[in-house]
């Protein structure tokens, strides 16, 4: 039943699907047309949680940013995190001025530092029981 194995996003609607609309996968946020606030993940409620406006639009967020903060987790977390340990997580600040919680990938964990230039990738988190790949967005250091 190999042909039924798929990529399954860890959560729907976090990023745009290049196979559906072409181009690169990009994180999808919300932009409040009334107060200008940005949100990630997008406000599925359709309500701005700063000014209560319903005038929200979906926006594609920049795929490059800088590490605002991070940690390297050495202890296996609860059952629903099934990927490798240790791993690094933290916050990336995008040029739009929004901060995104993310896993980090593609580098020696020791080399991570605040202010590091990073870019978004879609990558496997783990496989589920049927062998489907559960995927998530992550950020990795920009290789010039």
């Amino acid at each position, binding site marked *: 039943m190999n042909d039924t194995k798929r990529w399954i996003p860890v959560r729907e609607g976090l990023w745009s699907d290049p196979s559906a609309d072409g181009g690169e996968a990009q994180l999808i946020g919300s932009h409040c047309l009334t107060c200008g606030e940005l949100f990630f993940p997008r406000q599925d409620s359709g309500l701005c949680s700063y000014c209560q406006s319903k005038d929200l639009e979906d926006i594609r967020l920049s795929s490059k940013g800088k590490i605002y903060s991070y940690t390297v987790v050495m*202890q296996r977390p609860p059952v629903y995190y099934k990927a490798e340990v240790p791993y690094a997580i933290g916050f990336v600040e995008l040029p739009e001025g929004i901060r995104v*919680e993310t896993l980090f990938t593609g580098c020696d964990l020791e080399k991570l530092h605040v202010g590091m230039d990073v870019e978004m990738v879609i990558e496997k988190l783990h496989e589920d029981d049927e062998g489907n790949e559960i995927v998530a967005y992550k950020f990795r250091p920009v290789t010039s």
Partner: protein
Amino acid sequence: MAKRRKLGRGVAVVGAGMSRFGMFRDRDSKDLFAEAFRDMTASVDKGLDPADIDALYLGNFSNDYFMRQSHWGPLISDLVGITPKPATRTEGACASSALAFREGVFAIASGFYDIVLVGGVEEMSKRTTEEVAEGLALATVPYEGKAGFTFPGVFGAVATAYFEKYGAGREHLMNVTIKSHENAPLNPKAQYPYTIRDMMEAKKASLEKRGIPVPEWEDEKAFLRDSKVNPVVAWPMHLYDCCPISDGASCMLLVAEEIAKNFTDEPVYLAGMGQGSGRGFHASEALTYFEATRYAAKEAYGMAGMGPEDVQFAEVHDCFSIAEIIHIEDLGFFREGEGYKAVEEGRTRLAGPKPINTSGGLKCKGHPVGATGISQLYEVWTQLRGKAGARQIPNKNLRVGAAHNLGGTGGTCTFTILERR
């Protein structure tokens, strides 16, 4: 200017008790609450007839998950023999019983009840560490768990941001741990009543006994730097930066101010209280403060007509060492970015000018989450009444103390100021 909060009538604390905190294989929530209740009734100077209690407010985060049993309000009112008086459960993650305290205050201040029992209970140690972490993760944003966000992870990222902004480092976190462990042996209810030096000496003795070479730890910090005894959980959070898994219960007797003297000649009064809610870190302006704590503090100070300088000592929510440093700044005890220096200079030690976590804090006293908020107030009450024994703050004019309780990663924060008049 924020609206100044006030009570319809004053509220006094006339009794307080807590169980010993710890990991108890052979004790359950009822047993622990019974211990806290007996401790409380014994503390009411002129005695309490439980039949006079009008209502119970009980904080519990997640015994539903931990013990597969919910509906703890009536279970506990039945236990202490006050049915059919109303029993109401409150939930605010690790701040659950601070919310019970507030509900009790509102009920009395409104004039509806005169005598209210407030308490908290949590039984966590029958689960594995992984299960507890899963239970605690119920207090975070839903999908983040799958993507690896854990409580130590979030606070690890908070510490990294704080270090970057203010130039602090891991050694400053150790100062918090060492200070809390100095107080712990003086608290007979603490889960870990040992100093770091005690633990270091015990480790040496055990290694020697087993014929294993003993490392040359020249002091407590050297011991804490040894990754064999103090491994990384989520950098820079190490094992000794994290509070333990605990079982325990706490309770307090609140009464209308005008009848307080029927119970004791030395009531402790509620001076101010505040509660805030927070968005979570993804939406915070910075990871280096808690918006909800600042809001709770502002409300409490406003209501009390006091400032941070008036609060002589406090219990703060040190679920992780970095949290204590940030809270003492958010509460205004020290300037932003200077909390770590204050700890380093010994200002928050028992004999320092602003003692913090004289109980040993969550780190050493234990953190049975639903019981924590009222156990903090228990410590403040005990100190204000001069009954803290070996850990009594050496200040003859102790008059005002406060407790800060935090739920989740700052989703719920409370700050409560008690005073002796």
